[in-house]
């Protein structure tokens, strides 16, 4: 993902360029949050470019991950950059830095003449920055935040200007504490925060005496409370300001002996929002921080889909069938040959029969072998979850696994809003896999050479416009769900969940986009045809686990369902889509399993 905005914003740009081919071009860079980045997670890299020369520049910004001391370049990224005369631009790009990488080279070169380098800078990662293995916890505040919270979490305090403009930049962030913040968020920052929450982020909002300065329509939409007023209370001998109102989520902590909530929680997509009605940093509240402690072992959960990529079945020609074909062919050939020799003596050539036999068996072999599952040299799986809140953007997380049956040069393509990272195997061996990510205006192209029998795994995040929405008409009896499918594929096995009940909607055909208005055909009306009363939680999960087949595909579906925490959904539409995110190569036999969740 690349975002361009004018340099009117002040950011902590500290990297001063060293050495320059063209003194008219200046480059400053900053990586991560407070010089911390998380290994193998998407990390924002800000590149500030200024052109004080006479001519405009049409260039290519190239970023390379390198390994010292051999200067081996493993993964490279490139973005087109236009820098008119006298202009300044800030680019935010998100890249996943691998554990083996110790240098990053950032280079601005000419679009056509690649030997013409306008500016170049190399980051010594391990000297200049702090790699982290655990996801970061950020503190967003205009006043100093403690470096360590009573939850045991280490905090990186940042300002609003350091918030990223697209959610993928938060790939390495687990939780954000929002303290006394008086600056407003930009629209892009707001959407990025929402997408990050939908994807599984955690936001903790502290309020208290400054709430009247902090409040904004954006925050009021997010927090799980309809705020009405602020009051003064006595809490364990401390005089505190408390925000009052109607809780919109689960109240985790209340003022002792009173009804007033202190900590409220609500899910937001796969993520969570906590709202503290007081400022916990201004007072000591029994049990408050205990409730915010992260559960142990949570970090590994998102990596589990990688396991099923390796379990993907690989269809191959049946040895038994081919052996049968060979035996039948040889037997037939032998007999016909003998007859042909015999008949030739009697003047009746049977050679034609022999030729026809060869052609017939060739046809049979060609018919069997033309199955794409056998004949295509690449076998792949694209599995993922796309989640939205019934409006605006969908946040998609996808895992892509590829197995090549021969050495091929591959060029995969996806939308330019996506970010992709390569997931390296636990034991990569001497060969760390090369890949080049080339962005242009519309697409991201992933270029690589896949060796014979090599497995490649990728993780992809892609915020995009929601293509599936629904509306619910409730009355007496069964509710009617209208589903609007503006994707270009038919969706399967749709299920509507409401308060523990699951309604099977079946197949959802696509809506004709050119009508440019919500249409509701008989097929799309999708009235619940089967009603099954289920308790939210285990029973609902069991329902999904009851897929009739034990195939790898069904196991993948269950893994996705579990990852999406679908059993915790209160009102949502779940549907399976065969629509791919990465354009399928003609040599590729791909299985697409995508779970779309639309919540309300």
């Amino acid at each position, binding site marked *: 993902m690349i975002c361009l905005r004018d340099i009117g914003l002040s950011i902590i740009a500290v990297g001063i360029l060293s050495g320059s081919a063209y003194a008219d071009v200046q480059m400053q860079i900053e990586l991560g949050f407070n010089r911390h980045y998380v290994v193998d997670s998407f990390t924002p890299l800000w590149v500030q470019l200024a052109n004080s020369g006479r001519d405009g520049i049409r260039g290519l910004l190239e970023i390379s991950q390198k390994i010292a001391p051999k200067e081996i370049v493993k993964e490279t990224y490139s973005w087109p950059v236009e820098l008119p005369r006298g202009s300044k631009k800030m680019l935010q790009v998100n890249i996943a830095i691998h554990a083996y990488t110790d240098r990053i080279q950032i280079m601005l070169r000419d679009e056509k003449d690649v030997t013409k380098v306008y500016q170049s800078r190399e980051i010594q990662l391990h000297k200049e920055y702090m790699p982290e293995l655990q996801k970061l916890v950020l503190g967003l505040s205009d006043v100093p935040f403690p470096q360590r919270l009573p939850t045991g979490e280490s905090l990186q305090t940042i300002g609003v200007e350091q918030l990223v403009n697209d959610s993928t930049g938060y790939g390495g962030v687990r939780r954000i504490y929002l303290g006394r913040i008086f600056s407003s968020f930009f629209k892009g920052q707001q959407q990025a925060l929402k997408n990050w929450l939908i994807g599984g982020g955690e936001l903790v909002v502290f309020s208290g005496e400054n709430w009247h300065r902090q409040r904004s329509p954006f925050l009021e939409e997010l927090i799980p409370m309809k705020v009405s007023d602020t009051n003064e209370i006595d809490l364990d001998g401390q005089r505190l300001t408390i925000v009052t109102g109607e809780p919109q989520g689960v109240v985790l902590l209340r003022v002792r002996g009173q009804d007033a909530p202190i900590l409220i929680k609500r899910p937001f997509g796969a993520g969570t929002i906590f709202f503290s009605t007081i400022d916990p940093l201004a007072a000591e509240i029994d049990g408050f921080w205990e409730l915010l402690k992260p559960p142990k072992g949570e970090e590994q959960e998102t990596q589990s889909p990688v396991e099923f990529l390796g379990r993907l079945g690989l269809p*191959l*020609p049946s040895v038994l069938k081919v052996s049968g074909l060979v035996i039948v*062919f040889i037997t037939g*050939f032998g007999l016909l*040959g003998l007859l042909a020799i015999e008949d030739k003596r009697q003047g009746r*050539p049977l050679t034609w029969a022999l030729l026809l036999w060869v052609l017939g068996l060739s046809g049979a*072999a060609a018919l069997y*072998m033309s199955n794409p599952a056998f004949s295509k040299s690449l076998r792949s799986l694209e599995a993922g979850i796309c989640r939205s809140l019934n409006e605006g953007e969908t946040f998609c997380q996808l895992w892509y696994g590829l197995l090549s049956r021969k050495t091929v040069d591959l060029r995969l393509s996806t939308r330019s809003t996506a970010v992709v990272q390569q997931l390296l195997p636990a034991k990569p061996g001497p060969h760390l896999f090369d890949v080049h990510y080339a962005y242009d205006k519309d697409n991201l192209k992933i270029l690589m050479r896949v060796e*014979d029998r090599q*497995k490649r795994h990728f993780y992809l995040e892609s915020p995009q416009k929601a293509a599936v929405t629904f509306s619910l008409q409730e009355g007496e009896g069964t509710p009617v769900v209208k589903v609007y499918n503006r994707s270009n594929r038919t969706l399967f096995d749709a299920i509507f969940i409401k308060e523990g009940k699951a309604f099977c909607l079946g197949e959802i055909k696509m809506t004709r986009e050119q009508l440019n208005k919500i249409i509701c055909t008989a097929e799309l009306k999708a009235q619940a045809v089967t009603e099954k009363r289920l308790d939210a939680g285990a029973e609902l999960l069991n329902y999904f686990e009851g897929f009739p087949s034990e195939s790898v595909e069904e196991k993948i579906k269950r893994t996705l369902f579990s990852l999406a925490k679908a059993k915790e959904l209160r009102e949502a539409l779940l549907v399976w889509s065969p629509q791919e995110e990465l354009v399928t190569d003609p040599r590729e036999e791909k299985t697409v399993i995508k779970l779309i969740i639309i919540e309300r």
Partner: protein
Amino acid sequence: MWERVQSYLINSHNWSLYVSLLIFTGLALVLALPPGGQAAVISDYGLNLKMLFVIVYIVLYGIVAMNLGQQIKFASYQVPSSQVRGFMRTCQLALIAQLGFALFITTPYWIVFKTISYASWAQILWGAGHLFIYGFVLGLFGLLLATLTDSEITQFNVKYAVFVGFLLGTLFISAAHPLNPFHALSFILDGERAGQSALFFLEGYSALALIGALLLFLIRRKYLSADRYER
């Protein structure tokens, strides 16, 4: 004409050669089939047996080609010197028809091999064409051998000694690699390397053409001298 061609294609002498070719290459093809299963298992399956079929095919086709060449001599009578030219053309046509037929009858195998090797039709056709040229040269060698001596045991010993020497010598002596069918077929089936090896194939085909021309010259000379001797 058709009857003559038919008699070249299949007769009591070469029928067993064709069936042997089908049996052994068919067995190699079945062994070369990769086992099915999950991606993780397949990718850890280190031994690549895909080329087993090609290796067996190269050896068997070479043997069949030499034997077919020998049988052409056995089928022929003494040729007067005035008819040697026409006879030589007939021999070449017979050899071409039989070698082509041997390739044709293995078409179902090549279709299966194309799928398991993920090669293109162009690569398969080029590979078959290369095998045909290699077989034609070996067939001429078989014919020459048959004209040199009537002793079957001598022919057998010399034929296999030269054949094994040719395959191993060209396999290990780097200057002779362009002549080696294993090297050539592995280049052809690896599409990318084939494109980068124009010189390799130019050397290989030039050398095969020279050897073929030399063999034809020697065969012709042998027939002419035999006719003079008879007189």
